[in-house]
């Protein structure tokens, strides 16, 4: 028999083997801030269950290792991921001493890289299946539903990150909605201002270099420095402009965070608008004018639709970037998931850091998938520019 290895599969199998047999699966701590003790898969789970998980991991890794049918690889990755997700909850319950509310069980390094390895396998399969944009969004929804189900079912309730959540359920959702508002609101503002600015830069060549350079410089200012820079002017505005304070404009808090995110968002939106409009085939513009479209009709009927995928790419960059950056807003009292991250760092409570970080990453990931799908949907129709 001719045995052939899958290139990516070799890497995945190596990672999985290391994670399953060498790295710790879970961490046990007597309370939330003491250093933890590592537990392997067999230690963290009842013997039979632990053995079952090892078998699943080994079989899935072998399927990844060799050249196997795509469907088999799909099944292997999904089964492995589901088993890991379910059993990490079981480990939480199993490792928690009965009646002990201080002990903290958290997924450890080995668990995370197992998740990483099989997500890689799944992503590879999905890419090779060349799913349509809708199907990809569908997969995302399915995955989100599965995670939601696990959360609601309570099978993860004994994990440390959820214990942190239960202590802060109210503020979690409040900060979460602040986070999303901050990220989406600044994106929205950037689109409202950046699109016309990009169009202007496209039409007026003299403006272009100047505007893009200024935005470029803003982009290079470190975020914390930018927050700092904004405190003084916004503080001044709050004191001297009537009604500004009533609108929530202050030197610290949401206002400077919003303004900073907005400023960071401008460059990708403006630059992509300019690039997108510049990429509109000359022949199409020419035809638009030749058929008797006014400048406005040409802008909305021809230039804009043709530049749209490129502009959307800019918006995708901004959204993902903003979801991440909004974390920093907590530093100046702007709220968001960053609140948990920085509190956690302050208390050296890793679980609390994760409570802020995990949803942020998940949001950014979901935003990227959804916008990629939208971009692809708008592009396929108008693919090749004809000669």
């Amino acid at each position, binding site marked *: 028999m001719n045995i052939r290895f899958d290139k990516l599969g070799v890497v995945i199998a190596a990672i999985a083997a290391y994670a399953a047999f060498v790295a710790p699966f879970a961490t046990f701590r007597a309370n939330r801030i003491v250093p933890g003790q590592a537990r392997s898969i067999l230690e963290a789970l009842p013997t039979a269950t632990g053995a079952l998980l090892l078998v699943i991991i080994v079989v899935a890794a072998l399927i990844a290792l060799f050249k196997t049918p795509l469907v088999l690889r799909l099944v292997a990755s999904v089964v492995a991921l589901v088993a890991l997700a379910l059993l990490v909850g079981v480990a939480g319950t199993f490792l928690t001493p009965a009646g002990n509310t201080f002990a903290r069980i958290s997924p450890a390094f080995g668990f995370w890289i197992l998740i990483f390895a099989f997500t890689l396998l799944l992503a590879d399969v999905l890419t090779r299946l060349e799913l349509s944009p809708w199907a990809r969004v569908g997969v995302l929804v399915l995955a989100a539903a599965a995670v939601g189900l696990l959360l609601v079912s309570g099978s993860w309730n004994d994990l440390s990150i959820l214990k942190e959540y239960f202590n802060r359920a109210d503020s979690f959702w409040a900060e979460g909605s602040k986070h999303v508002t901050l990220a989406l609101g600044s994106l929205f503002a950037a689109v409202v201002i950046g699109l016309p600015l990009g169009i202007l830069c496209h039409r007026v060549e003299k403006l272009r270099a100047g505007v893009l350079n200024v935005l470029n410089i803003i982009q290079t200012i470190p975020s914390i420095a930018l927050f700092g820079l904004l405190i003084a002017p916004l503080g001044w505005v709050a004191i001297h402009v009537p009604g500004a304070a009533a609108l929530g404009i202050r030197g610290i808090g949401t206002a400077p965070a919003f303004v900073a995110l907005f400023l960071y968002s401008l460059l990708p939106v403006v630059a992509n608008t300019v690039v997108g409009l510049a990429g509109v*085939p000359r*022949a*199409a513009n*020419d*035809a*638009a*004018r*030749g*058929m*008797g*479209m*006014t400048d406005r*009709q040409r802008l909305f009927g*021809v230039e804009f*639709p*043709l530049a749209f995928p490129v502009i959307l790419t800019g918006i995708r960059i901004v959204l993902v970037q903003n979801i991440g950056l909004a974390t920093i807003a907590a530093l100046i009292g702007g709220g968001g998931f960053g609140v948990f991250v920085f509190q956690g760092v302050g208390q050296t409570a890793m679980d609390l850091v994760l409570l802020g970080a995990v949803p942020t990453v998940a949001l950014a990931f979901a935003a990227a998938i959804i916008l990629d799908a939208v971009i692809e949907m708008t592009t396929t*129709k*108008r*693919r*090749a*520019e*004809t*000669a």
Partner: protein
Amino acid sequence: MIEIEGITKRYDTTTVVDDVSMVIEPRTIAVIVGTSGSGKTTLLRMINRLVEPTAGIIKLDGADNRSVPGYELRRSIGYAIQGHGLFPHRTVAQNIATVPVLLGWDKDRINARVDELMTLYQLDPQAYGPRYPHELSGGQQQRVGVARALAAEPNVLLMDEPFGALDPIIRTKAQEDLLAIQKRFGTTIILVTHDMEEAVHMGDKIAVMDAGKLVQYARPAEPAISSRPWSAPAKGRSGCCRSDGCVTRWRTAPPRAKPSAATPASATHWPSYCGRAGRRYR
């Protein structure tokens, strides 16, 4: 009627259209031939004001073409763009409907018109209407470009090498169709081509351009045109058309200088055109 009076276009210091005057009678076809870069497209685009002339006036039925806004003017003039210029993001049907939509025709009328034109150009409306331009062959794209120019039944039609990508059979058919349309609606047409057969066949008059100048404007039957002076070789260049005797004929029947402008005879040996036009599509 289209009256072109002393039209000049200069880009920086280069003059691409040089003091051209000509009159295109209503309900006739004027064909413009000339070497690549001789200013044919530029001349055409000054008629619908896609290019603003440096000097000169163009009148349509006696009215200066600057008396209405450019976009309004262009809606009333059909324009088949060199290399088709279809909108890549719009379907074939939407492309053809462009001007009628701009003019605010009602939906049924637009649909009927699109179907009619597609059928005329042998593109099944059901099969091709919903397609995007990149899903068509070059020849099909070109036919759609012509159909789009005809869509709003314009009185004046500017066509820039509209049949270049068509095979001889469809090309002949397209020419006949255009002639039929022109007869039926009395359209005034200016057509740019590199194909001399086409020029002679379609043109009531043929204009020859060289280096921005109009060097000849006459009926195909007139001696100067029928002796095909534009296929004579440039002075000092090896002639590719000597064999068919045009050089001799040119000597015996020298081309008439442009009626108005005093073009020196020495400047009127429409050079380098031989290979391309005279022979290409025989």
